[in-house]
């Protein structure tokens, strides 16, 4: 006896199922064609429309709306969760299957991977000579190959130190006591360390971000990972000193082996009272102002080694277009219109991103002038006056080089390895890789 409802039969259900399946299969090409419309550009990023910072969502939405009002080719914002965008599989699998977005954003750390993969569009033809000159060479260089521009940076994010004013006051210190040398920094770190607080905090998790934050300490003593001869320069006293600095911070007990959330998160660490001084970037201003309003804090530039030179690193993301996308030309035009036109709106867009949506330094000279009032006051003013002059662009490295440097940092900082032996071993690995590397130049 059948348990089926009256009027139903097994055969009818099977027929219906088969019909539905066939309809689904028949509909697949239509889904593909909908995704593949030439007049709709997909812009993947981790800000809008699903982001949780309203000012950033608004900025992206307004940009897309403004473009869509005046162009036949429309831009659709596709939000990808931050962690999935940076460390997940979404972008990689999309490109691997030929379904990469038309427009997306990348950091310098990822530039060579995409450039060497042949998917970055040359944006130079869409940008006027005047606009090209508006980007300081130090900012745009890491997005250029053979003098052609492959990415337009939307922000410049220099690294600095943030400190807790309360922790300083509790230790009878004030803003005049901020450390200026590495030795002073380590001493102060120890002095500010208590039973439930660390004096100093560097990133401890392996990754692109940790490398990014370590580079300026290497540069300050004159260190480089590659010499002018194209060979490794990693086995140098400056590199060893930078590795040892981070190791000493851990061994002295002034810095933690683990950070809360991530070393980039100033609220979860400095804001939560986990540390008294934190190595973090300019984005920390808006993070603290929005999420740790009650925590008074100050900012100072990176201390230098004895006889060293002040240098910091400036990161930041860039708009790039997929050269293998559906309509690369329209994507190139959009990026140029959005961030690299001499039009007043384009410049103001950059100012708004850096002062309203986020707290960043602009990547254009004109934006720095147009938004001078905002950039020169308050905490942003500390960055533009004290910190920015020593900024050096985040290097672009292939993943293999990034990993060698990452391992060297980790082994010395947390593994207790000898800095000199580690630098020597890493240098040998670098030389072995550089001998076979065929991609665009590293910087």
């Amino acid at each position: 006896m059948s348990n089926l409802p009256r009027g139903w039969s097994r055969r009818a259900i099977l027929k219906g199922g088969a019909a539905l399946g066939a309809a689904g299969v028949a509909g697949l090409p239509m889904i593909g064609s909908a995704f593949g419309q030439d007049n709709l550009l997909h812009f993947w990023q981790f800000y809008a429309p699903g982001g949780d910072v309203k000012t950033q969502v608004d900025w992206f939405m307004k940009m897309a709306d403004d473009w869509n009002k005046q162009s036949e080719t429309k831009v659709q914002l596709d939000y990808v969760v931050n962690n999935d965008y940076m460390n997940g599989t979404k972008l990689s699998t999309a490109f691997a299957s030929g379904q990469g977005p038309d427009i997306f954003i990348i950091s310098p750390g990822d530039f060579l991977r995409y450039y060497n993969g042949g998917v970055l569009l040359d944006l130079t033809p869409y940008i006027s000579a005047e606009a090209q000159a508006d980007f300081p060479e130090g900012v745009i260089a890491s997005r250029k190959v053979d003098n052609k521009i492959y990415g337009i940076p939307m922000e410049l994010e220099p690294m600095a130190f943030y400190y807790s004013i309360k922790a300083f006051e509790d230790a009878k210190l004030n803003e005049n006591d901020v450390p200026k040398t590495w030795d002073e920094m380590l001493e102060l770190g120890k002095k500010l360390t208590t039973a439930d607080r660390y004096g100093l905090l560097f990133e401890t998790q392996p990754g692109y971000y940790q490398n990014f934050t370590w580079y300026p300490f290497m540069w300050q003593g004159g260190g480089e990972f590659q010499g002018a001869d194209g060979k490794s320069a990693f086995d140098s006293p400056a590199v060893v000193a930078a590795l040892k600095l981070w190791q000493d911070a851990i061994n002295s007990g002034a810095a933690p082996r683990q950070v809360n959330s991530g070393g980039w998160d100033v609220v979860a660490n400095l804001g939560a009272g986990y540390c008294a001084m934190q190595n973090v970037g300019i984005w920390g201003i808006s993070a603290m102002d929005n999420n740790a309003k009650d925590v008074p804090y100050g900012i100072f530039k990176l201390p230098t080694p004895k006889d060293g030179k002040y240098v910091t690193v400036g990161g930041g993301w860039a708009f790039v277009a997929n050269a293998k996308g559906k309509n690369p030309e329209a994507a190139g035009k959009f990026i140029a219109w959005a961030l690299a036109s001499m039009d007043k709106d384009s410049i103001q867009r950059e100012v708004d991103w850096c002062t309203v949506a986020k707290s960043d330094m602009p990547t254009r000279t004109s934006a720095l002038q147009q938004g001078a009032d905002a950039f020169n006051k308050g905490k942003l003013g500390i960055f533009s006056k004290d910190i920015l002059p020593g900024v050096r662009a985040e290097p672009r490295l292939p993943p293999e080089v990034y990993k060698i440097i990452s391992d060297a940092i980790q082994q010395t900082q947390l593994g207790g390895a000898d800095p000199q032996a580690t630098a020597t071993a890493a240098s040998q690995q670098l030389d072995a890789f550089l001998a076979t590397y065929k991609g665009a130049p590293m910087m």
Partner: protein
Amino acid sequence: MSIHPAQRLEQAAAAARPSRRGLSARHREWLAGYLFVAPDFIGLLVFVGLPMILALVIGFFDVNGFGAFQFVGLANYQRMLADPLFWQCLRVTAIYVVLLVPALYVVGLGLALLVQRTGRFNSVMRSMFFAPQMVSLVVIAVVWQLMSSDKVGIVARLFSSLGLGGVSILGNPALALYTVVFITIWFLMGFYMLIFLGGLQDIPREYYEASEIDGASKLAQFRHITFPLLRPTSFFVLLVSLVAAVAGSQAFDLIYVMTKGGPANSTQVMIIYIYQQAFQYSAFGYAAAMASILVVILLALTGVLFVLTRGGRFEHE
């Protein structure tokens, strides 16, 4: 409802007769069986079998993740041999497996023995042991990360109260892997407890009653009744925990969220390294070659397990 003998005869005759489409009842039954199995079989073939074969093939190519394929023969395998990090990851994976599989077996069985008797208290305890399974692994990882935070985390404070201040259980390369193993055991123990409980319930009570009459101690009962009769369950637990330890989601999710393979690669198990090579470094060919080797290792270990335990069969089978 009873069936008249005449009707029964009619039905039997109909079953033996070929249908109007030319299939006998037995063939139709046979066909129906395969049709019901077909969706699972096709799913496994498309989503497991085919990717495995493709991964094996991709291992012989240089694949940059942007559409470029270049046949490189055994180059990816040669690179593997010369890659110190590959060997380091293999070593970390081996330690992880050696610690995790026996520990899960012992803890799972131990908990099952503790709570096997019915009763309200044991029901509550079973629920508590199983509770971690109800929470997402990512949430588990984040919570443990907070609890393990240096100085201010609950674990650090506990150590500090024991005179072990300054211990960083996730930030010290000498401790991080053991911490991950501990958390994994805590997470999975309820699941294996449940499997063992099922196995324990299959053992006839008469055996225990007879042994009690003979004066057997609890330990003797365990040695001579419980443990031998749990053989099929033990095999299943060892097999599943072995696969989980080598390639399970907890091996990836927990480590990825808590340590990202650090500190100093001390928790970098093979699947984390494979993931990084494929999705962060775009070295899909190299990642596929490593994945193929991992599958071979897993097959070899499973084979050894089959031989050692006779596939969970009893001596008389």
